[in-house]
């Protein structure tokens, strides 16, 4: 079994972290400037999160959608949920993961690369978020 016991726990951890980031002026502002719709498709457990920085809801710099939806993403990233978890802990090099096939990406990759420096603070936010949720076991 993977890190997350089910999709609900994944949404609570990863989508929850993204929702916190969506209200962070420094990070959220830079992501909003990209005007991208990015979909993350995860396996084990099957789940998906879509980040809409093109037409976000009035509150926040971008909107995070849990589960399937009709948005048309410009970039789709596919990976195992465990890889996503390690990525948000700051333990996965995106470029290496893409080259090795641990992650797959469809769409204009340079737009994603440009966001990487902006999302660095999210790694610490993710760790804090898991601690606040009482998921210390996921940080081991």
């Amino acid at each position: 079994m993977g890190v997350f016991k089910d999709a609900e726990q994944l949404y609570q951890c990863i989508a929850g972290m993204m929702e916190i980031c969506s209200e962070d002026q420094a990070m959220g502002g830079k992501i909003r400037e990209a005007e991208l719709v990015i979909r993350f498709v995860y396996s084990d457990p099957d789940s998906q999160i879509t980040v809409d920085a093109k037409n976000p809801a009035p509150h926040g710099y971008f909107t995070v959608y849990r589960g399937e939806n009709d948005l048309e993403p410009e970039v789709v990233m596919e990976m195992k949920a465990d890889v996503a978890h390690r990525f948000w802990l700051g333990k996965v090099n995106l470029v290496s993961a893409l080259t090795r096939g641990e992650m797959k990406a469809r769409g204009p990759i340079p737009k994603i690369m440009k966001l990487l420096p902006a999302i660095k603070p999210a790694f610490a936010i993710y760790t804090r978020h898991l601690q606040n949720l009482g998921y210390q076991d996921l940080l081991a």
Partner: protein
Amino acid sequence: MSDYWQFYLPTRIIAGPGTLQDLPEHILASEHRRVFLITDRVLRQNGIVDKVVSVLKGVEMAGIFDEVTPDSEVALVEKAARLAGETGADYLLAVGGGSCIDTAKAVNLVLSRGGNLRDYEGFGQINTPLGPMAAIPTTAGTGSEVTQYALILDKQNHYKITFLSPYLAPALAILDPELTISMPPGLTAATGMDALGHAVESFVSTSTGPLARGLATEACELIFRNLPRAVAAGDDLAARLAMLLASNLAGIAFSNALVGCAHALAHALGALREVPHGVAVGLMLPHSIRFNSRQEPDPYRELTCRLFGSTAGGEMLADMITRLLQECNLPYRLSQLGLAEDDLPAVAGSASVDGAMYTNPRLADAEDLLVILQSAY
């Protein structure tokens, strides 16, 4: 070195003077026989294409596309794919430098899968084998004949689209030095420095592994020994073969281990100021090495130990590369390229978000890269 690595090489490599003669045998063995050749006008005019076509006995020439440009773009790839499809071609043959080979890879993708090239943009979007393809490099630098990448210019959106899949790598690469002897000294030197950049940066990359390091070391040795010879005497077949091998080995190494900040800076210099890629890589390499090795000295010590029997590391390697640049009559200062110092911040900004930065051994932001550029000015 990372505690996890992978290594993949799907290409059969045949190297040596006269190995072009082996080409028809391998095409026919693949049970395909209608060949579509992709090249550029220079190679058509200087007789290289005729030489290749003349050996293709028992093979049907479906067509020749000679419109490849130094930065091949989407419309050109789709045009070549359409023409190849109309001729009923079932085997692609790339003859030329990196742009010809990358174009043929992209044509193979569209020809095999249909649709538009942009549909396949990304990493890992091609998950089953494409049609058969052979590559015959006529320069010694990109290593594209063995890499799983193809870079195609998106003129509309002003960036190079990256396609990455193991299935993009040609099934066959023929390294025949007789096809590189017409390469002029400047191009020989610049492409050779590109290969050296692949070798050094894949050796020190955060994604490197023991196989990549072995190949990169061998490539460096071959380049230091043979690049000045190939530049000075273009008809030195032994030096030409050594450089083709070096480019190939470095190509395999970086296809698996990726590159670093010299390449990121070269991509930006090429995109913003049209500096030829090999010239830019060669020029930025010593300065990138000095920057990286101040904080991460060990991989450079390891490399100089293997190459020169000394653990002097980055400073020594940077000095050796600067001497090589001078010996090959290549620029070693950005100011020699006519760049204004005011251009440098934009170059640093663009390089800081280049994919190559993410496997550089030392973290660097735009300010760090500006310091490197200023040291190279």
